[in-house]
């Protein structure tokens, strides 16, 4: 997948080498997945330092616990699910995540985001902001489906919900997103005919 520098088979061999204690393989896994993990984590928590800490802890624990790890069917799926599990152990993150309420604009965040994203094109920025406004679980499902290109089965697995719930959640997210974009961005005429 484009956002992941590693093909699934390269992933598998890196995972096997890493389990045997190979540091280069471990770094390859890290480099191959860090951007995807970060993008995903931010959809669950939205606080950068929380996501950074969780990713750091996750990789340290993976390295130290490597002897007890199993082969996995999908390295990406495993890492996403592990990060999710880690983030949701944090009470504050969990409360926000399960509230299912639309996000309130966080002034500090908006300022930081404007600075950071000045170079981003207007369209991406607007879509991003609209996604930011969705409830956390809808943000998450969008991230998994469209950014990570997970299949619906994988989305359901990672989020620990059944297949139909995953479909429903994704559907709600898209309808809501189009609603936001339609209301805010009528100027984006190419989106809506």
């Amino acid at each position, binding site marked *: 997948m484009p956002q992941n520098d590693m093909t699934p088979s390269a992933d598998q061999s890196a995972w096997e080498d890493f389990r045997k204690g190979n540091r280069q393989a471990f770094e390859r896994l890290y480099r191959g997945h860090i*951007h995807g993990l970060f993008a995903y984590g931010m959809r669950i928590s939205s606080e950068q330092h929380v996501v950074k800490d969780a990713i750091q802890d996750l990789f340290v624990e993976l390295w130290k616990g490597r002897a007890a*790890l199993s082969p996995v069917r999908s390295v990406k799926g*495993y890492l996403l699910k592990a990060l999710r599990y880690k983030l949701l152990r944090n009470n504050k993150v969990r409360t926000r995540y399960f509230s299912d309420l639309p996000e309130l604009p966080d002034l500090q965040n908006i300022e930081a985001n404007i600075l950071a994203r000045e170079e981003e094109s207007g369209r991406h920025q607007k879509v991003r902001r609209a996604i930011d406004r969705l409830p956390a679980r809808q943000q998450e499902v969008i991230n998994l489906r469209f950014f990570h290109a997970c299949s619906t089965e994988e989305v359901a697995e990672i989020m620990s919900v059944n*297949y139909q719930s995953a479909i429903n959640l994704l559907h709600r997210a898209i309808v809501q*997103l189009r609603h936001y974009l339609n209301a805010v961005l009528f100027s984006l005429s190419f*989106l809506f005919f």
Partner: protein
Amino acid sequence: MSYSQEELEALLQNDDFIRWVQLPEGEEHAYWQSWVQQQPDRQAMVELVRSIYAAEQAHPGSHDLANEVWQAVQSQMDTPVRRFSWRRYAAAAAVLALLAAGGLWYAFSGGAAVQRGLILSKKGAAQITARNNGTAPKTVYLTDGTRITLSKNSSLEYSNLLEGEKREVYLSGEAFFEVAGDAQRPFLVYSGDIVTKVLGTSFRVKEDDKITVAVKTGKVAVSRQKESGAEELILLPNEQVVFNRQANTLNKTAVADASLLQSPVTSATLSFDEAPVTQVLDSLAAMYTVNIQYNRAQLAKCMVTVSLEQESLQDKLEILCKVLGATYETQEHVIYVRAQGCN
């Protein structure tokens, strides 16, 4: 927006579509291009998905962040795992617990699966080693319906029992056995120098400086391993035998320590409510450390509501197959489930 709910859902589930939107090239490019042109609002959908992808992709500062976190990870890779640090311990336990609970999905039946301190590893097609590194007793499920609750620091070697005539397990440490009845296949527990033979019963074997076998229900026969046809002691409920290694004696008495006969609390129930049958099969594969093969794409949409308790694996599979209108067979230690699939 004239999308019907069904159309939108179908599109959102179409992996080919998502792949093409991300990377508009390849064999299917022409097909999707003409598909888009058929209706104007399809273009809108493509653009929306493409924007989502691009927007999620461009994470500002992500590169610096990757290096920063990597530095931090590296600095901690070689520090020894600190003992008595609760935070560390809890965090490590979290990852391991994940492997067991949610991670049943990802724990591949071909290798070692970790279950909150219980490590199951596979040797060859059929041999399994279970080791309890946790602090509480852990239950191992055998495919014949037998449950063995391993005390901490104990391990058990056994086969998946899918084929073959004998039921033999090798224990080091302590365990409580609840053996499923099967008159055709006696159950043999090897521990240290002695062997305990049962037909269907519950009892405990404890191996330390001496070896104790205490019977709760049923009837077991205990003998020394080396001498075949040698002294065999029959134990009835509430009886125990203690093997003294130094004196090389077997002493039969009433059970002195009642705690030896306490059944561990086990919950063997696998309960699923409208879950994909693939999840049920994967859970069974992980629970029994067996290899179950099936067509994932075909079965992913089959939802089942089922509660499986103390049956043997075979009985559980038969229940599932009835629900699905499917069949299963075992070949060379691999279980193949064949079904029509669902819509």
